[in-house]
């Protein structure tokens, strides 16, 4: 008999792979994702966190702690601006988990909740960057050129990843 690998291990390893894939995809597909004037940003890190909140046990996985840790690394490595995603990631996970609990657990509600989560994430990120003068784009530009394409990209990614990840968590539930 082989012993089963605990789901927490899968979760942590997947978390870091998702984190690095964010950067790698942005680099490799930068011609498509950041084509002027639009910009689509992949948020696989957040996708992985939110799917864990949907299907996994939040307490057992220490989800909020991991969200804060990965947010901190994100700030440090990618942007070099502390105190942004370290708070936004846990907040978004919390919101998504709260709303998902009320809704019937199926793909459509997951889709809606993720839509909400990404909107909150990108908007708060915009506010933080506008506060320190990192961006000078107006709210209208932000909505059309950043939020809409980013939502589209991330919802497609969700549709691709949703069912495989659900299966992974279901088989490890016992």
């Amino acid at each position, binding site marked *: 008999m082989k012993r089963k690998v605990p789901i927490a291990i899968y979760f942590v390893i997947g978390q870091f792979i998702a984190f690095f894939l964010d950067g790698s995809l942005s680099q490799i597909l930068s011609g498509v994702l950041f084509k002027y004037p639009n910009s689509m940003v992949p948020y696989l890190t957040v996708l992985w966190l939110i799917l864990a909140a949907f299907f996994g046990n939040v307490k057992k996985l220490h989800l909020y702690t991991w969200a804060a840790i990965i947010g901190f690394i994100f700030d440090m490595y990618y942007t070099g601006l502390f105190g942004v995603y370290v708070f936004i990631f846990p907040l978004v996970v919390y919101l998504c988990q709260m709303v998902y609990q009320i809704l019937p657990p199926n793909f459509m509600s997951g889709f809606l909740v993720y839509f909400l989560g990404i909107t909150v994430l990108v908007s708060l*990120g915009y506010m933080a960057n506008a506060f320190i003068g*990192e961006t000078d784009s107006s709210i209208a530009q932000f909505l059309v050129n950043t939020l809409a394409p980013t939502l589209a990209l991330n919802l497609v990614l969700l549709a691709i990843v949703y069912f495989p990840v659900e299966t992974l968590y279901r088989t490890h539930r016992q």
Partner: protein
Amino acid sequence: MQKFFSSRKLVIVVVCLIVSFGLMSLSVAIRDKRNTPPLVQQFGNDIVGFADRIVAAPMNGIHHGFVSTKNLLNTYQENARLKSKVDQLTQTQVKDQVLTRENKQLKRQLNVGSTLTGYEKINAAVITRTPSTWASQIIINKGQASGIKKNMPVIAGPGLIGTVAEVNKTNSKVVLISNTAENSNRFAIQVLGDNSKVVNGIITSYDSATNRIVMGNITSKAKLSVGNRVTTSGLGGVIPKGIYVGKVSKVAQDDYGLAKKVYIKPAANLNDIEVVSVAVRD
């Protein structure tokens, strides 16, 4: 709803907000004032950078495969086009060699040491790009250990793409010229205008809708026209002279009609960067 806004949670939210703004201000202050980030941050970034290479290497490999196939399909057309340019290039190269040698001799005769034009290149590969709309940054695989310092200019392919913004021991962040932040990208550049008159200025902003660099506040009367070449001027700071930036694509008046505003099409493609060179002034 009542539960959501309980006093304990409200306190947590307020404390988080305060800490968040504090940390943001602190990191901006550090970035503006210090040459290197604190040791802890450098150490963390180095470790994450190493781990990133494990993921980035296969991804870049796949990308490479795709690009190679695409190149193979374009080869015939490109070959025909390039053949016509080769003769011209050899001629220019030979002339360049002769002029460089002559320049060196003349400098020696005049006892002029190093001027603004001399620079060495440090080559580096791009590990990853910041997944963010606001920070157009890439992370490269060379750092302090290879002699890179903050604010050095970075070149990819034909021209300038940005400057080094943060240096760790083994990797560093490069802010691209497409970054719209107010506090970055004040390059000193010059336009070689008609009648070989030189107009000096700085890059003042970036127009993301059309992918143009904007050089503002030009009061010189010299005539500039579309297609004039733009290079760095080497004035003020660590950026050497003569790095190609791009070509003039439009000359317009500024909002008050007092000064000129020049739109420059960057020479390098900012969305397809794999290998870069950091220019170090002699």
